[in-house]
């Protein structure tokens, strides 16, 4: 028994990603057709070459038919997966394992979500009765993640204004990055003061502390590592895929202090073990993390091992995670600038790793760490909220390990 990982056994050889945004004139079908088309074109193949599909969406369709109907796929296996906001990553993980197992030569992971058609603010269209007795006291996603802010500030002695400065800077940084990304929903830099003084949504969080509501789709083509160079001279090799569903005891257990996601710590440690990483801050070229709300990104810096406990806010403030910092975090603009079409986000993150490690990101937001010799990227996303969540961490690289 044990978790063995599939380091360097599969590679991503093609990817596609639509612009994310308010696609009023386009359906979920339109978006996934575009992402899938871009992916097969980039790999130089056709859909006839794909042997199996893993399709991720939370609320924009059920069953494999959502994909096969849109593409009129001829009798191929299509599995729909869902794991809250980690749905896109879960689709990729399953596609990778399917190829690594030897069951298929070529697999595709596709993620899509159409949020804007609902007319609601925030995530919607997901009726989850839960216990069904309506005793859960459901709160909105920004309120749920805002629970982190007072707890973090209290534990590490930050005054309310200091804490607000820290999360404001995270939003500012991701908007700076997103302004340099043609696929981002929000493509303008936003001044610190405007972020700071924006209308409050929940707790300490203003409008700019929250990721947007957008539509989008992304796709990836996975093959065995030894076949990778048949498709591209710049494949991305999968080093680690780590996913955990937590025991969901943070809302039951007074020991949980709302300054960490234990699920992220566990999945990150497992990913680093699979990938052979000992110092992620120094070894990674970039990280794409789940900045659904700004306090989430702050806590993730510590949970992912980029900062010491209680020090993340100082690293944020000093610019360590800026585009030109020691470890660029969310160089594509993150959920902050892209919005969060749930099924697509994990694959959108991987798309940025794909671009950066292949040297294909636009010059104005290319991370210099790749040119300096780093070849590994991390993607992370999570679903749920503080106290009960699922967490995914991948590590991919442009080089096979010696």
């Amino acid at each position, binding site marked *: 028994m044990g978790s063995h990982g599939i380091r360097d056994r599969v590679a991503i050889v093609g990817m596609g990603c639509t612009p994310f945004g308010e696609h009023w004139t386009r359906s979920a079908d339109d978006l996934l057709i575009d992402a899938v088309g871009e992916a097969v074109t980039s790999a130089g193949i056709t859909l006839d070459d794909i042997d199996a599909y893993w399709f991720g969406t939370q609320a924009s369709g059920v069953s494999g038919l959502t994909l096969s109907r849109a593409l009129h796929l001829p009798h191929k296996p299509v599995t729909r997966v869902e794991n809250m906001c980690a749905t896109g990553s879960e689709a990729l993980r399953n596609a990778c394992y399917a190829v690594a197992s030897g069951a298929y030569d070529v697999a595709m992971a596709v993620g899509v979500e159409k949020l804007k058609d609902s007319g609601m603010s925030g995530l919607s269209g997901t009726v989850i*009765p839960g216990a069904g007795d*309506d005793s859960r006291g459901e709160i909105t996603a920004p*309120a749920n993640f805002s*629970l982190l802010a*007072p707890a973090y500030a209290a534990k590490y002695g930050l005054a309310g204004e200091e804490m607000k400065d820290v999360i404001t800077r995270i939003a500012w940084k991701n908007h700076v990055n997103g302004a340099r990304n043609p696929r981002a929903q929000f493509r303008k830099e936003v001044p610190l003061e405007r972020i700071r003084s924006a209308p409050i949504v929940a*707790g300490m969080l203003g409008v700019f502390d929250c990721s947007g509501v957008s539509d989008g789709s992304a796709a990836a083509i996975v093959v065995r590592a030894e076949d990778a160079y048949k498709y591209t001279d710049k494949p991305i090799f999968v080093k680690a895929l780590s996913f955990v569903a937590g025991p969901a*005891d943070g809302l039951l257990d007074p020991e949980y202090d709302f300054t960490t996601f234990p699920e992220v710590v566990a999945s990150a440690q497992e990913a680093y073990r699979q990938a052979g990483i000992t110092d992620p801050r120094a070894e990674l070229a970039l990280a794409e993390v789940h900045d659904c709300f700004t306090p989430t990104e702050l806590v993730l810096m510590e949970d992912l091992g980029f900062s010491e406990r209680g020090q993340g806010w100082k690293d944020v403030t000093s610019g360590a995670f800026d585009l030109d910092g020691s470890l660029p975090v969310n160089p594509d603009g993150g959920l902050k600038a892209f919005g969060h079409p749930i099924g697509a986000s994990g694959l959108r993150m991987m798309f940025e790793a794909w671009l950066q490690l292949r040297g294909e990101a636009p010059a104005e937001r290319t991370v210099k760490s790749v040119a300096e010799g780093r070849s590994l990227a991390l993607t992370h996303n999570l679903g749920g909220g503080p106290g009960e969540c699922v967490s995914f961490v991948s590590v991919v690289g442009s080089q096979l390990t010696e």
Partner: protein
Amino acid sequence: MAGLIAYGAYVPYHRLARTDVAAALGGKGGKGTRAVAGYDEDSTSMAVEAARGALARDGLRARVSQLFLATAAPAYLDKTNATAVHAALGLDPHVLAADMAGSVRSGLGALVTAARSPVTTLTVLSDLRTGLPGGSDEVAGGDGAAAFVFGGHRNGAPVIAELLAHDTVSDEILDRWRLPGAPVSRVWEERFAEEIYVSLADRALTAALDHAAVDIGSIDHFVVAGLHARACAAVRRTAGVRAEAVTPDLAGVIGNAGTAQPGLLLADVLDRARSGETIALVVLGDGAGVLLLRTTDALPAHRAARPVAAQIAQGSAPMPYATYLSWRGLLDREPPRRPDPEPPYAPPAHRRTGWKYGFVASRCEKCATRHLPPDRVCTSCRSVDAMTDEPMADVRGTVATFTVDRLAATPSPPMLVVVVDYDGGGRFRCQLTDATEADAVIGARVEMTFRRTVTASGVHNYFWKARPVRTGETEGTH
């Protein structure tokens, strides 16, 4: 000896200043304030709060044999409301729970029924009084509840007030009425029924005094309740009791709570009466009724933990009139751009009645970890099906972290949310009510209160919320 063995009262936290009504609508508006049930309260939830106060004494709950809920503002028709109170109190399934609903006089009916019942009886009087904006029922009305346990037939439950006598006279009078579904009452010219009520009160009072062989001059506390304010005032003035025995009607500070008013006034007297005093409770409405009680030596040691006067003193600063109107459904405000709230589903709500209504969690038999909500698998040692019930309704806690949700669908935005760590272990995230944003801070002390969280698709969702422990209240007991 049979008689009253326990009581409790509930005055909601919120207040409306009558001058604010006048400021918005013009006119005089009147003096003082009225009590206002929160947007998350109704006659059922207030009944639970009052009954919790009455049953706070150890062992009393197990002795209750029947429960009557009297209200003129039932949360449901057809469906019994007393069963929700029964569930929230965790009473034995064999305890009869029945409504006496529809008329304000049902409060008198429930009291008399309980007082002369051969078994220990919990009777709860609860009401919301609503009128059209600016009308006298809105301005003079009030909300609240009171609960009484009559028993003492067996040893072990000291009687705090002996029932000396009672009498009722019934009379068919068209002085106040409301068609089912109508939002407000209609009232005949007030002077019409005044003399009739004075006469009816005299007949009932005389009968009760004769039966008990008590002289009217020896009444120590003369309580008169009823929606006919002129008639009540006339009875107080002309009945012949000593002037100092006439008790205040509290209408200036909390308004007239209709069905619950005689209960609240009686509770207020019991909060301060001395041993061996005689109380006459006169209730006017479709006739008259009188309960004649004499307090015992046991009263001082068995008063309610939360006196009516203290609850009045701890009420909120006056709320905006527009907020009151929107809470009452008289001002239809723009909802947030969110999906409509979901109603609870009947089967899971029924499967989890103990949790949902009683706030009964579970405790692991192996490692003593508390679980809110109750689990089958222990989150700590992962033992399966090794749990015992853990009632949590009266356990206080401390806020671990909090938020203010400005996007959530709630009848009274913003929604205050707290993560509560309970004394003795266990954690639960829930709403904070009867509070302002300043009350939601790490370290704040909270207690649990039974509320109607939302009404969706015609279904009331009852569940528990936290509320701040107000200063001046003793820690420990409910």
